[in-house]
């Protein structure tokens, strides 16, 4: 009898427990998070962050699905087009995100983002602000305009690294190497984006931040106009400077046929003294086991209006308009911007933080610390041009045109004229 009573009590307790659990489950919201961070160390960090968030927020369960980099854009576009995007999505900041915003697929997060902007480094809001509204928060920061050099090779040729502070000094140093029979700049433009970045950094040095941002954004944002035209003196000068590097013979001999990895290999193996890529080059150098690598800001022209300004790239976490629970999603986004998460991200990646936290006590690779110093000293920051210009003009007039300028198929002036024509046609077609 006692046994029966005990069993009954246990059964009742089980039912009560199940109901209580059911009630608790009913209040828990599950949010799907999609990202292209499928490879370590970035994937490891994001997964850790998701675990931390879920532990601290028992009413929300964030489920992270990582896609392989090249498949991600297709998957995300298909999901958006089919009306089934995730609750939180990582997208490339700038033009990519603006496409979704333009189609009304993202939540307007202006009120939510405004207080977060207080801790954001200046100039970075260009990456998520479209038509006066904010559409997400940034996670991680890459600096694009970095020049890597081999200090031992420079010393052998008697080149002072301080001379690399200006474009003119960089060219003089390149001539010294060429005279010694060494093609100085490791460069491979087969995939076009490398030439895009070179032109991007030269142009960024020639223009002020306002001019640079506007000349790009005029194709994405109807509220932005540009006083500078692509066929004006300054952009054409940027093309001329780019072409002059090739004409002088400063690029390594496979500059049109090699890819970026081949060029990087030439630099890391000590066959060329200079190589330009973003802050991710620090990780590449470590991966290649390269010694004798130092870095400085990509040299701006001597008369640059803002010589310490940087070009940046970042990931944007956004909330699609169809999200199950916008408030819960916002909590996750806010968590991403917290000092705890940013510290974890910086310490476990070769990346920086877009937020103004005091990083002096954070453990960082010495070269990354150097990039961080460049960031601290920067007058301002702007995104890569391909993040703030519509792809319809960018692809043909920068990615393809940079090769055409190098081969001589287009003169610098023709490249500028073609680009401006595209911008004018695009704005006219949208009645801007």
């Amino acid at each position: 009898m006692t046994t029966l009573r005990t069993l009954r009590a246990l059964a009742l307790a089980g039912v009560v427990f199940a109901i209580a659990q059911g009630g608790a489950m009913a209040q828990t919201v599950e949010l799907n998070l999609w990202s292209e961070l499928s490879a370590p160390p970035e994937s490891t960090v994001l997964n850790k962050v998701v675990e931390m968030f879920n532990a601290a927020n028992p009413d929300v369960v964030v489920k992270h699905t990582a896609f392989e980099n090249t498949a991600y854009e297709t998957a995300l576009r298909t999901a958006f087009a089919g009306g089934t995007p995730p609750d939180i999505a990582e997208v490339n900041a700038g033009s990519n995100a603006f496409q979704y915003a333009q189609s009304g697929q993202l939540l307007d997060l202006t009120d939510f983002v405004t207080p977060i902007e207080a801790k954001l480094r200046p100039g970075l809001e260009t990456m998520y602000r479209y038509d006066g509204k904010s559409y997400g928060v940034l996670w991680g920061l890459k600096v694009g305009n970095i020049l890597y050099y081999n200090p031992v090779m420079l010393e052998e040729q008697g080149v002072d690294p301080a001379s690399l502070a200006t474009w003119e000094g960089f060219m003089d140093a390149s001539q010294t190497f060429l005279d010694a029979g060494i093609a100085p700049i490791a460069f491979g433009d087969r995939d076009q984006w490398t030439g895009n970045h070179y032109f991007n950094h030269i142009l960024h040095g020639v223009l002020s931040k306002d001019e640079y941002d506007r000349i790009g954004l005029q194709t994405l944002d109807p509220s932005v106009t540009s006083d500078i035209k692509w066929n004006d003196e300054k952009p054409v000068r940027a093309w001329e400077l780019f072409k002059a590097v090739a004409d002088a013979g400063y690029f390594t001999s496979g500059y049109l046929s090699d890819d970026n990895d081949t060029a990087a290999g030439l630099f890391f193996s000590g066959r060329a003294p200079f190589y330009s890529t973003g802050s991710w080059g620090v990780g590449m150098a470590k991966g290649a086991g390269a010694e004798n690598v130092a870095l400085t800001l990509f040299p701006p022209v001597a008369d640059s209006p803002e010589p310490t300004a940087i070009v940046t790239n970042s990931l944007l976490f956004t909330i699609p308009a169809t999200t199950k629970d916008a408030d819960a999603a916002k909590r996750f986004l806010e968590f991403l911007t917290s000092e705890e998460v940013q510290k974890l991200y910086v310490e476990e990646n070769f990346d920086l933080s877009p937020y103004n936290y005091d990083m002096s006590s954070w453990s960082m690779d010495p070269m990354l610390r150097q990039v961080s110093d460049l960031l601290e000293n920067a007058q301002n920051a702007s995104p890569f041009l391909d993040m703030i210009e519509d792809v319809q003009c960018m692809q043909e007039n920068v990615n393809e045109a940079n090769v055409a300028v190098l081969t001589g198929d287009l003169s610098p002036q023709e490249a500028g004229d073609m680009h401006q024509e595209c911008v004018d046609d695009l704005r006219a077609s949208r009645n801007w």
Partner: protein
Amino acid sequence: MRRSGRTKFHIWLLLPAFAFYTVFWIVPAVVAFLSSFTQWNGVSLASIRWVGLANYVELFDDRWFWNALRNNLLFVAVVLCAIIVLGMTYALILNARPRGHSVFSTIFFIPIVLSSVVIGLLFTQMLSPTVGLVGPALSALGVPGVSEHQWLGSRDTALPMIMLVYVWQQLGFAILLLLAGLQTIPNDYIEAARVDGASAWNITCHITLPLMRPVLTVVIVLVTTNAFLLFDLVVVMTNGGPFHASEVLSVFMYSEAFLKGNPGYGTAIAMMLFVIVLCVSVIQLALSGRGQKAA
């Protein structure tokens, strides 16, 4: 089983394959066809605009379309001739079973099992003036001015280099088919011709080649359609460059649809490519059919 019952049974057997074919081929093809009459951003269905024939009209005014088409036709013509001539020659040699023929057969067939991406990367490295072997090797043989030549970065040599690699890659498959065809020719015909005093050349021209016509037709159609649809090798080796110099229609289509964000225009290019390949294949089949009747 009665005849009508058997037919129903056959229909039931075919149904899964038909459903699969409809969902994964016919429906996407129809959607692609309809998409070629639209403009949209590829992100939101709400942005789709019906533009009628505008994409096709624009295509005929687009100099890069004509450039890609010219490159494609040149590519198909050169690789087809090379593969057929070389393939037939090697197949005839291997069919005679000379000493070491099995080793050579294996060597010819190796590229078939390698992926285009691997082959592309391999040749890209070999042809590189900075890390490759081709320039220094030619220099060592006394060929002047090639030590730093950008084989894949020059307008003059980018497309020919892709042709060369493509022929190397595809030759084994053509040899395989042609050798199989040669082995189906009855020995009696050849021996009878020899008894009648026919030379090897006469036997090849008047017996072997006419009897090989059906296999040759298959090889020609396969090589032509595959060459028209070439994509991966170009993307890996030159990305269509330098500045469109090696761009073929499929690469042009990809660039427009995915890199420039014009899916409607991209599908219009795809439709044109489909029509071109269809026309060329039909003409080839018709010509070979007429030839067979004449024979």
